[in-house]
């Protein structure tokens, strides 16, 4: 009887632990989604109204501490750091979206082709991917962006192009297994046109992994754009971007640390939020 009671206690403890983890997960997801929604709303306010002007300079109020009028303080040129951080979020997110589109579309086409058709095509694609991955990504991004001239589209497409190998690897491995499923074999046997098989069978199988990986890719894009701007190869000077503002604030780290710390924490919080939601998506789709 005592054994049974003990086993029962163990089960109860396990159930409680699972419930606690679920509650924590839900809370984390809510906070993460909340942060991204706040960011989106502020971005809209910044675009639609003149309330948050990232370029407005007032030299009489340079390096002001955070206050009600300036929640994140002001920088060395008297610009509002909060407005600049919000505008930086906008640039980061636009770059992330362009990156996602380029990387996911290109990577899916290449990965599915390699995984489904295999043979020589697979080998050639694998070889090219190895070559791209052999060069340090940041080095390649800096070179291409510096040569093409830094604009939001050139930064986004360049990071996106370098994201293609990762997307291709994810989709290739799934296309390989889908090919071996009975329903695909049957479709091939009855002479279903290949494009139809790809769209009706392979794409739906690839989609969940694609969605899960998209969140990781988005954070990688935000980090890459930030590093690029931090190194001085991103958007040109007055344009606000997280990496750029952090680098600008460096010289004033001792006298006005908020210029650097505010965008740095915003960047880290955004990456955390996207990762958290991505993990939920991964759980749901796998």
């Amino acid at each position, binding site marked *: 009887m005592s054994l049974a009671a003990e086993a029962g206690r163990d089960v109860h403890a396990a159930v409680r632990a699972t419930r606690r983890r679920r509650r924590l997960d839900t809370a984390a997801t809510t906070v993460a989604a909340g942060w991204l929604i706040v960011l989106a709303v502020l971005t809209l306010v910044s675009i639609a109204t003149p309330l948050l002007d990232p370029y407005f300079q007032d030299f009489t109020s340079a390096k002001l501490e955070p206050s009600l009028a300036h929640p994140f303080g002001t920088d060395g040129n008297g610009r509002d750091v909060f407005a600049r951080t919000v505008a930086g979020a906008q640039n980061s997110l636009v770059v992330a979206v362009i990156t996602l589109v380029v990387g996911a579309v290109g990577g899916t086409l290449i990965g599915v082709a390699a995984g489904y058709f295999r043979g020589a095509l697979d080998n050639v694609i694998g070889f090219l991917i190895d070559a791209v991955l052999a060069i340090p990504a940041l080095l390649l991004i800096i070179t291409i962006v510096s040569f093409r001239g830094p604009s939001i589209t050139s930064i986004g497409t360049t990071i996106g192009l370098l994201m293609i190998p990762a997307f291709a690897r994810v989709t290739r491995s799934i296309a390989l297994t889908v090919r071996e499923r009975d329903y695909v074999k049957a479709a091939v046997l009855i002479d279903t046109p290949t494009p139809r098989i790809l769209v009706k069978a392979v794409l739906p199988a690839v989609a969940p992994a694609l969605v899960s990986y998209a969140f990781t890719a988005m954070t990688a894009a935000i980090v890459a754009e930030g590093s690029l701007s931090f190194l001085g190869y991103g958007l040109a000077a007055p344009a606000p971007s997280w990496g750029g503002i952090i680098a600008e604030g460096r010289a004033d780290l001792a006298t006005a*640390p908020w210029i650097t*710390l505010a965008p740095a924490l915003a960047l*880290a919080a955004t990456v955390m939020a996207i*990762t958290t939601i991505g993990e939920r998506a991964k759980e749901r789709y796998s």
Partner: protein
Amino acid sequence: MIHFAARRGVRALGVLLLVAVLAMSTPMMLPGSPALAALGLEATDEEIAAFNDKYNLGADPFTRLWNWLDGLVHGDLGTSIITDAAVTGQLAERLPVTLELVLVSLAVALVIALPVALRAAWRPGSVLDRVSQVLAFVLLSMPGFVLGMLLIYLFAVVLRVLPATGWVPFSEDPLGHLTHLILPVTTMALAEAAVYLRALRADADEVLDSTYIHAAQARGMKPARLLLARALRPASLPLVTLVGLNLGMALGGTLVVETMYAIPGMGRYVSTAIGQRDYPVIESTTIILAAAMVTATLLVDLSYRLIDPRIAHVARS
């Protein structure tokens, strides 16, 4: 095994060759000629030819690669357009700096990650486990330059115990060398430790649940010995991949850290060269960094079979 190694080796050489041709094509990515940019529009044909000859420019990528390889055999990696110094000599000064940064960070990261991951996997759900998971998550969400700025702010501005930037050679001032090393190494090591911790923790969990571990435990084997002698090897496969890839990428990955802390290493060298369109430097460093990456990938591939002989069996059958 030899057959496998040979096949992989040939493929790696092929990849490297392709990268080298691409690297030699960089001057073609921009309109205009570097010679005209440096000499001015009034330069005579002879002057341009001499300039192109000196800096190995002007020809098609294949010829230029051939010239570069010819120089490589003689220990000559070309001449910088901007400083007119030999690239070989400049690299010889910078490579040791980056290597030290990379190897010390790797050691620190492993010293943090290994015991914590094994201990956490031994007692899942313990305080150590939960705290280390949360910390790893936070660290993984921070790009190098964010973590670095926070560390600089905390230790150089608020506490004033460490220098914010700079680099002192060991031969000049050993203690100063060490104090300047702490912040950059911490920035790199913490991010790496988070990656290793996660990988090892996930795999150790699975390994610790296997029959032979339970058997060893039932026989009374001490946890420390059990973890290190029995569980570490099967659980370390992804860790070896990550460490290998990290070493391969590290030379290029120190770019941000070197710029942030003003360290005269490979990363800063090449990023400056890109801004100045210093083609001989860009090309030589790109090929060297790619060679490091390709070699690391190859070694990781080969070491798999040494760590886990079952992989070779599966591949054969």
